[in-house]
């Protein structure tokens, strides 16, 4: 273990942790905006109560998303300063644009939404949550563009004098095909988490909650269920599209995802393989013929490049002495876990919708227990997706341009990195406990009461308690 390893662990831990909150923020802000819109259009009080109820869960989560995001931005300079020097022109500009265009929007309008319930006219208050939600989605776009550039660098050249990557086409950077494929995939993945959250919480209340609240929660189960199912479909379709682009620009990642060593035509997809620990030998496998060729290139007979062949090719291209393959068991299993947990969430949402159709309340306790995992399954799928995509890029930090080991901060000592790694891990663990407890408390609490609206004369009553809950 050296400072590089610790810095990598820190990045992995802080990023995966950050991304537990991000999908909820992206998905929930949109779902809450939709709920509030339905209330605005129908004036059905049920939707107002759902808006406020899920809005509160969203905000408990949002706070954590924000603060862990600040760590991400600082971390590049702190732990990866040579990477920062190399890519500032390209990668840094995306972060700066994200802050200016998206993050301000999201944070400012969320403050307005939280405190503006009775301060702002209804249509303007509705617009604030939409502005915040659009902010989160824009934010996701710019961050994914930054990440996609590391997977498939485009729109730049290397300045021979400084050795730094310099941007030469912002258009190419923003329309990187990896970005265009990753954006819908991540967006639908986020909606699966938020939809799953709505279903799980609402279903719990159908079983255990107060009778007078059940009609509203029944509506929420249906709403969240459809969101989850449609999002699952969207994730699958966009994932397939993404797989084909990945096979094209990062063939090693696809080969590693499959543990495919030899270049193969009509390649089978491995459902499950028990291999030796280093992943070099297959002990037992269940496979679907031709599926990998179809997933990778849309043609069941297509040739999929293998790890060994790619290693030879990269050695010739980038130099000898480097293992250009990622850790095969990690990529192989994270890829499968992503797919498995994602499909399980979609299937469970479908089952829930079926069993609650036409106003039924299934007696099955098993369904209840299963459905309570609905926000967790897509979260796990999301995490494994990121672990796969980031670990699959190794040993590259910027594919074909910079090795991970070359990007680390030279001036930061082992003791410093260990200090920060330990600090973040402990702090994040403690905050996770607090956050989950709060979420459960408020999820169980049920719908808020809605007080009758004050007459217009009273609107300026300075002595009326403000409507907020800090």
């Amino acid at each position, binding site marked *: 273990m050296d400072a590089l390893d610790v810095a990598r662990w820190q990045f992995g831990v802080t990023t995966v942790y950050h991304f537990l909150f991000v999908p909820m923020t992206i998905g929930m802000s949109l779902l809450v905006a939709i709920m509030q819109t339905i209330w605005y259009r129908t004036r059905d009080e049920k939707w107002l109560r759902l808006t406020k109820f899920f809005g509160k869960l969203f905000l408990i989560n949002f706070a954590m998303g*924000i603060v862990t995001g600040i*760590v991400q931005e600082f971390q590049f300079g702190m732990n990866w300063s040579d990477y920062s020097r190399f890519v500032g022109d390209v990668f840094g500009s995306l972060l700066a644009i994200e802050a200016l265009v998206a993050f301000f929007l999201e944070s*400012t309008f969320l403050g307005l939404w939280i405190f503006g319930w009775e301060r702002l006219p209804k249509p303007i208050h509705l617009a604030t949550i939409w502005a915040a939600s659009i902010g989160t989605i824009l934010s996701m776009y710019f961050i994914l563009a930054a990440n996609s550039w590391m997977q498939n660098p485009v729109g730049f050249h290397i300045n021979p004098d400084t050795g*730094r990557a310099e941007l030469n086409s912002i258009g190419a950077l923003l329309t990187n095909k990896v970005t265009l494929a990753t954006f819908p995939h991540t967006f639908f993945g986020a909606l699966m988490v938020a939809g799953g959250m709505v279903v799980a919480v609402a279903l719990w209340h159908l079983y255990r909650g107060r009778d007078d609240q059940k009609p509203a929660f029944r509506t929420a189960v249906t709403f969240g269920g459809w969101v989850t199912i449609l999002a699952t479909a969207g994730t699958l379709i966009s994932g397939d599209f993404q797989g084909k682009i990945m096979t094209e620009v990062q063939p090693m990642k696809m080969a590693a995802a499959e543990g495919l060593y030899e270049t193969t035509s009509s390649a089978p997809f491995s459902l499950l393989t028990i291999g030796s620990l280093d992943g070099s030998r297959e002990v037992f496998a269940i496979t679907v013929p031709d599926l990998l060729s179809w997933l990778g290139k849309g043609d069941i007979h297509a040739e999929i490049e293998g790890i060994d062949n790619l290693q030879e090719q990269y050695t010739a291209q980038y130099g000898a002495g480097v293992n250009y393959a990622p850790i095969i068991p990690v990529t192989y299993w994270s890829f499968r876990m992503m797919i498995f947990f994602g499909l399980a969430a979609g299937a469970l949402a479908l089952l829930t919708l079926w069993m609650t159709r036409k106003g039924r309340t299934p007696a099955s306790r098993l369904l209840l227990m299963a459905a309570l995992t609905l926000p967790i399954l897509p979260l796990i799928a999301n995490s494994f997706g990121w672990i796969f995509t980031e670990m699959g890029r190794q040993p590259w930090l910027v594919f074909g341009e910079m090795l991970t080991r070359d990007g680390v901060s030279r001036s930061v000592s082992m003791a*410093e990195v260990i200090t920060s790694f330990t600090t973040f891990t402990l702090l994040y663990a403690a905050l996770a406990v607090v956050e989950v407890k709060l979420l459960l408390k408020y999820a169980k609490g049920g719908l808020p009461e809605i007080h009758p609206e004050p007459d217009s004369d009273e609107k300026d009553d300075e002595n009326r308690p403000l409507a907020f809950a800090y």
Partner: protein
Amino acid sequence: MDLATFWFILIGVLFVGYFVLEGFDFGVGMLLPVLGRDDRERRVVINTIGPVWDGNEVWLITAGGAMFAAFPEWYATLFSGFYLPLLLILVALIVRAVGFDYRGKRADAAWKRNWDIAIIFGSYTPALLWGVAFANIVRGVPIDANFDYTGGFFNLLNPYALLGGITMVALCLTHGAVFLALKTEGDIRVRANRIGGRAGLIAAVLAVTFLAWTVSAHGGNAASVAISAVAALALAGALLANRAGREGWAFVGTAITIGLAVVTLFTVLFPNVMPSSTDPANTLTIANASSSAYTLKIMTWVALVFTPIVLLYQGWTYWVFRKRIGVHHIPDDGAVSSPAGSAVGGA
């Protein structure tokens, strides 16, 4: 003026925005135990910044992003060099933000007390450490020929930088007290006004000493002398306005003071961005730390279009929440603690 210089100025503007806006957020957090004598008062104190602190914090994220994009070498050297102080700042910002959001979400006293501690720690620490960090940047730190910081942690703790840190704390405290006097009514307003006056005197002594030291020892010119003098005058004006009960003008005064103090540092720094105390040849300058012309051009367009929009909607936020608040605006604790009753809040 070339684009790199324009971005040096813009980053200065972003840090001015950050310290002017988060400055009073920090001050409000520091004053939480002093001005909030019971839970209801503490909620008044926190709610004065409730709708805005999150948007204010984004000024830092944007300044950091702009540094990364426009001056990658500066961003890399600074963030890897000031490693432990930045770690502490991050921890402070994390617990402060979570504290604002979570303290009211349970009724029990120990829970609230712990988050109050988090908010207080999270308000003092960044103010102090940003002051230390910026003073060190102006003073110059050991940087080698690879632009790597070689100084370690204790190199950052010199008298000048520590004075910078304490000055920043005193200025934020004053700024926060004046803001609270402006935004509250009743007893809290009276006490905030009194504390603002006292803290302001201390801040004035510290700020004058620090700015005089800065311009005399670290490359001040006529402009930086003039700017720091105006900063000092603005603080004097703020104290007079505060005494006269004109809180709006007092707040304008402390905002100008903090803003111009930051401008002074940037003026003294120009045309360097991070001087090397090891060898002047290793100094990071606007010219050798900046990114390429194309990136700067793109970023300039984005900044020219979006900065006014951001200023408009953030300004609007302050307008929406312009009314003073007092203890009678705070709903009963039960309404906050029990989710079923938190009703009106929605948040």
